[in-house]
């Protein structure tokens, strides 16, 4: 290729990068700016997210502190009444018993608390944003690229500012997980509402529905199957992300996996991995069966 370069001007051959000193200066300015931002507002931000810490701690101590039999009974009951499916219920009981037998009960409880909080927060943030996106093309055009960045940016990258602001611990972990898990919630809420049958919406308008009545009576109920799929995806992504979040101080199964990677503990790694798979399947089957049961009315009996 050197032969081509001999005829081309240097500018077209070697990419004219901005020189090192300018880049260094820019980098330093941005870093310093962010650091001073953290210094001046770090405490305020910590105070704002303090309730998350309390909630997380409360749930974790509840899950870890309660006798295992109570938790197991509660889980089996929730799964049964959610899914009304014996196979899923028995599967849940069996996998939780196996997890307990291999000594991962406490770690699983910690992870469970984490995933529960992350999912709730993702729903609380995701549904309103999804609704706003569905109502306005401009909001959609603004939010979509942000979601693209959130989904494609390697999670290790946004761990950096999160750690800078919040330090090491559960809350930064939680925030990292939510950043990773909330996009499908937002996207599927938006999609679900946009897919609502135009004729039904027109009927709601024709009867004089206000915007809120339309949202409550028509758009949300009809978008529910898609929103349920979003919740399901959010749970799955939270479970995947708690392992990465263990790098910044989240305990539970993820931390064990991290240690297993560092020390090449093959068995420990897979045991913890399978425990994660176990709860993932429990969440998935239950939420899907629940969603399906909500849609019972759409079954055609005769037509």
């Amino acid at each position, binding site marked *: 290729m050197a032969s081509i370069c001999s005829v081309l001007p240097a500018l077209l051959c070697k990419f004219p990068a901005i020189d090192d000193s300018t880049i260094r200066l820019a980098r330093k300015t941005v870093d310093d700016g962010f650091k001073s931002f953290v210094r001046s507002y770090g405490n305020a931000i910590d105070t704002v997210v303090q309730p998350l810490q309390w909630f997380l701690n409360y749930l974790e101590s509840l899950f870890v502190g309660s006798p295992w039999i109570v938790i197991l009974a509660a889980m089996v009951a929730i799964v049964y009444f959610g899914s009304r499916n014996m196979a899923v219920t028995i599967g849940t009981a069996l996998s939780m018993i196996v997890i307990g037998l291999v000594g991962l009960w406490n770690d699983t409880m910690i992870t469970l608390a984490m995933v529960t909080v992350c999912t709730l927060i993702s729903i609380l943030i995701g549904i309103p944003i999804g609704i706003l996106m569905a109502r306005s093309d401009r909001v959609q055009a603004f939010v979509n690229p942000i979601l693209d960045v959130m989904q494609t940016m390697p999670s290790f990258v946004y761990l950096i500012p999160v750690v800078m602001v919040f330090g090491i611990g559960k809350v930064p972990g939680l925030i990292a997980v939510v950043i990773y898990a909330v996009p499908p919630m937002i996207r599927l809420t938006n999609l679900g509402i946009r897919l609502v*049958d135009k*004729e*039904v919406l*027109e*009927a709601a*308008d*024709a*009867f*004089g*529905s*206000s915007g809120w*009545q339309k949202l409550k*009576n*028509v758009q949300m*109920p*009809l978008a*529910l199957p898609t929103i349920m799929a979003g919740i399901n995806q959010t749970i799955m992504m939270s479970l995947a992300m708690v392992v990465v979040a263990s790098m910044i101080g989240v305990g539970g199964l993820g931390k064990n996996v991290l240690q297993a990677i560092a020390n090449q503990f093959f068995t420990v790694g897979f045991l913890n991995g399978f425990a994660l798979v176990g709860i993932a399947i429990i969440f998935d089957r239950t939420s899907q069966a629940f969603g399906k049961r909500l849609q019972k*009315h*759409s*079954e*055609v*009996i*005769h*037509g």
Partner: protein
Amino acid sequence: MASHAIEVKNLYKIFGPRGGDFVDAVKKGMGKAELNEKHGHVLGLQDINIYMPAGGVMVVMGLSGSGKSTLIRHINRLIDPTAGEVLYDGVDVCKMNDADLRQFRRHKTAMVFQKFALLPHRTVLDNTVYGLEIQGIERKESEKRARRWIERVGLKGFENHYPNQLSGGMQQRVGLARALTNDADILLMDEAYSALDPLIRVDMQTVLLDLQKELKKTVVFITHDLDEALRLGDKIAILRDGRVVQQGTGQEIVLSPADDYITAFVKEVNRGRVINVETIMRPLSGNADGVPLAAGTVLEAAARTMTAARVASAHVVDSNGRPIGALDLSTVIAAMVTPVSHEDRAAA
């Protein structure tokens, strides 16, 4: 409360971002094709003037793309007009603000849709109370009213079924019950029966005619089916390319179609069920002989009565029983057959 008439005046609808800019051009005679070609705007409706009588059934008929569904959506302003007025009880619907419009839609209009547009997650009963729920009427009261209409449209026993569990005809009965429960003066029916089987369609037409006899609402009924239009309409307007081609009673349209387009339509019509005896009777000369026929009897019924009585002549009597004209069987049959001139015009 008595129903009021709806008056559509000089209504134009041009679809596209700058529709308003082209109203003058269209008024000066720019056609649908030219507007689309030169400016990329679609001419939906042009210069619509229709008086929809109070307490009567106004049928707007046209083929797909004629603008009939666009027109009905102007009455409750699901579509905003580009120019013109829609007057109800002296108020221009097109100038209402959002709050007034919502009140107008809640209390004055009810609509039935071609594809039913029921809420799939609600039972028949919950669908039927929808309009009242939006108005904020107490659940117990609205349920009582809804149950009455569910029974009237023949769905008693299905209150707790979901729409998906019902056939098309039954779903549209729910749509009708939902609209009637609203107890609004104006009933808008957008191709309400077009998706139904022919037999069920006739059945539903009967339901509507029976209800209308006592309710006397101002009904606007959209259809592409001339037989349906003739059966239901006190007055019919025929739309083509967003323009009213002819309006009048069913008889007027069948007997004197305005142009070849309508002639082609009218050719296939069963005239015996449209034309009344007083239209073809001759003045009474001498004694009223033969069987008496009430004014308003259609020819088919007249022919049936006369053949059953084995007479070739009959006289028409008004509501007081006074003879007002005479006719014989051959006139009746001649009037029931499509005139040759129509055949020629349609073939040309």
